[in-house]
């Protein structure tokens, strides 16, 4: 089953200087029991995508087309505030970059974890037992004692693990993780990735994992989605994309990662040019201004072209781009 199915989603923001199309015809699917990574640079629309799925779009934003199917039925675009609230935290859980966003500094961790279970009929003792169980799963040492402690008594890495424990407490079917490791040191980052992998197996939920860190995506995710300037330019299995990227942007992005270089380079690869102005989107392909394959065909917006299995790319020249890496 597909847990989250975003079809043809477009989102506009009305600003003082004109209407800005933040997402254009975005298609993506998060299958059951899979970890799907979303990569893209600043301004690619990752945050808008998450906010739209969570129904937390800013006041000046509006969905202009498309639908978001959750567990194959409810269309999140048209769900009312109450329906959305019932899903958030229960069926769709989130973890953000800053764990303090999820933690209330003046309440003990135990109290907060109990509060999340407000819908459950369990007794207070049973709820605490579940909290302890969950804290143990995220490898917080001595969870019985730490339940009474306050967020500031935990280190940064521990706070993020508690935030994850809280997100997974209600056994959601979808976990949205927005750059959860970005603020952490590499050693902690690795630990969180491994933790997420384990927990996802145990709980059997799907994960939508947003990151700008290609290494993290490669290590954690089954499938991945590459976004550029509000469009999904390529999606497929992580292995397909890392080994056989077909969209010129994906290729360039992968080439830029200094982690790929095993020695010092006099000149590091970059992507010349800048993001297009989203208030005045180019008519055709979104990447045409920065692409070396651009020709007349690119003046028209390319469809999503399958290039083998579930691997899809939004590029007229997907046939030419195969083979050697950029």
């Amino acid at each position, binding site marked *: 089953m597909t847990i989250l199915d975003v079809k043809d989603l477009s989102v506009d923001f009305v600003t003082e200087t004109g209407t800005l199309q933040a997402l254009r015809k975005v298609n993506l699917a998060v299958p059951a029991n899979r970890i799907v990574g979303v990569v893209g640079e600043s301004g690619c629309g990752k945050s808008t995508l998450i906010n739209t799925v969570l129904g937390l779009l800013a006041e000046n934003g509006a969905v202009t087309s498309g639908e978001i199917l959750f567990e194959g039925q409810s269309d999140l675009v048209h769900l009312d505030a109450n329906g959305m609230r019932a899903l958030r935290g229960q069926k769709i859980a989130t973890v953000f970059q800053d764990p303090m966003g999820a933690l209330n500094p003046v309440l003990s961790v135990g109290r907060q974890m109990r509060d999340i279970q407000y819908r459950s009929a369990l007794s207070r003792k049973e709820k605490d037992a579940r909290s302890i169980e969950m804290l143990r799963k995220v490898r917080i040492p001595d969870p019985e004692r730490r339940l009474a402690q306050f967020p500031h008594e935990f280190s940064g890495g521990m706070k993020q693990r508690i935030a994850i424990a809280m997100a997974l407490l209600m056994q959601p079917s979808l976990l949205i993780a927005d750059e959860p490791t970005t603020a952490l040191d*590499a050693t902690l980052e690795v630990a969180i990735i491994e933790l997420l992998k384990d927990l996802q197996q145990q709980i059997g939920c799907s994960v939508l994992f947003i990151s700008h860190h290609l290494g993290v995506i490669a290590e954690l995710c089954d499938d991945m989605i590459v976004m550029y300037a509000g469009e999904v330019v390529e999606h497929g299995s992580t292995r397909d994309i*890392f080994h056989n990227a077909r969209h010129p942007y994906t290729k360039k992005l992968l080439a830029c990662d200094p982690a790929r270089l095993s020695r010092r380079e006099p000149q590091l690869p970059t992507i010349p040019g800048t993001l297009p102005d989203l208030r005045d989107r180019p008519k055709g392909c979104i990447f045409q201004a920065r692409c070396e394959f651009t020709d007349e065909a690119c003046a028209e917006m390319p469809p999503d072209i399958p290039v083998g299995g579930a691997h899809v790319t939004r590029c007229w020249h997907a046939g030419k781009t195969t083979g050697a890496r950029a």
Partner: protein
Amino acid sequence: MTTEPLLAVSNLRVRFRIGGVISALAGRLTEIEAVAGVGFTLERGQTLALVGESGSGKTTLARAVNGLQPAASGSIRFEGRELGNFSNAGWKSLRRKISMMFQDPVGSLSPRLSVRSLLAEPFAIHGLSGRSLNAEVERLLALVGLPRDFADRYPHQLSGGQARRVGVARAVALDPVLIIADEPTAGLDVSIQGEVLNLLNSLRDRMGLSMLIITHNLHVVRQIADRMAVMYLGRFVEEGETEAIFQAPRHPYTAALLSANPEPDPDKVHNRIALPADVPSLLDRPSGCEFHTRCPFAQDICAGQVPASSALGTSRLTCHFPLDAGTRAVKTIATT
């Protein structure tokens, strides 16, 4: 030119007071040592990178070198002169020679000043009105590859990469000899990160700059630094040539940091050195080798005896049981 290195730091200590009068009266420790006896030298034209987890004292060390953070003891010599002996006027001229770049590309630019004012500020501070300010602003914009009309923008209208370029331009405005850069690529996208590193590398080559780079991103270190120093709880645990350390880290902590780097290859099999538990508190430093609480190779002696600093190949390190140079760290662990 003197034979003296550009920058020579020895046995530097920086302390912070924590808690108030009450905890002092109660006889509790009221000071932490964020930098605890660090020494290194930086030659002209050389780049040294400081790496380590957050809280390891990298930033404090950098700020102490720049005089923004008073040192408790130890010596910092710049161009052969002790910083502590500088008069106020001396400091001001020193500020021209050492410039600093801060972590947050946008946040380190004063929000109500235009790019033009930001770029003109170093000249205004140092009273260099002889040069034409407008010409200088245009020269700097061109130097960092920004279009001329950016002079009229404000920091909130810049992207992270553009703001970082403005920061670089400010840092090189007065032809410094040393740039201290705190996380110069933090928060930047990978493609922009490459641009900034290329810019720094080319400026260094053209202007003969020395650089002290603070970062937790090891890939950045490899692309920009000649030498690197790994910090743990305010001390250097390993220092040496970057490439040599990447090839064969000798300190287990260095090896763990290197192995903790996720790589963009889904099929890569990771043999990680898992570091247990969190970093110890500076208020309660472990005995002996301070890394022994997390070290996978720790033995009895490590908890009891402080390892001496020793030279090994091109590196210096403090460890009782350095990893073998020939074998990759990961393999060593497999056989342990």
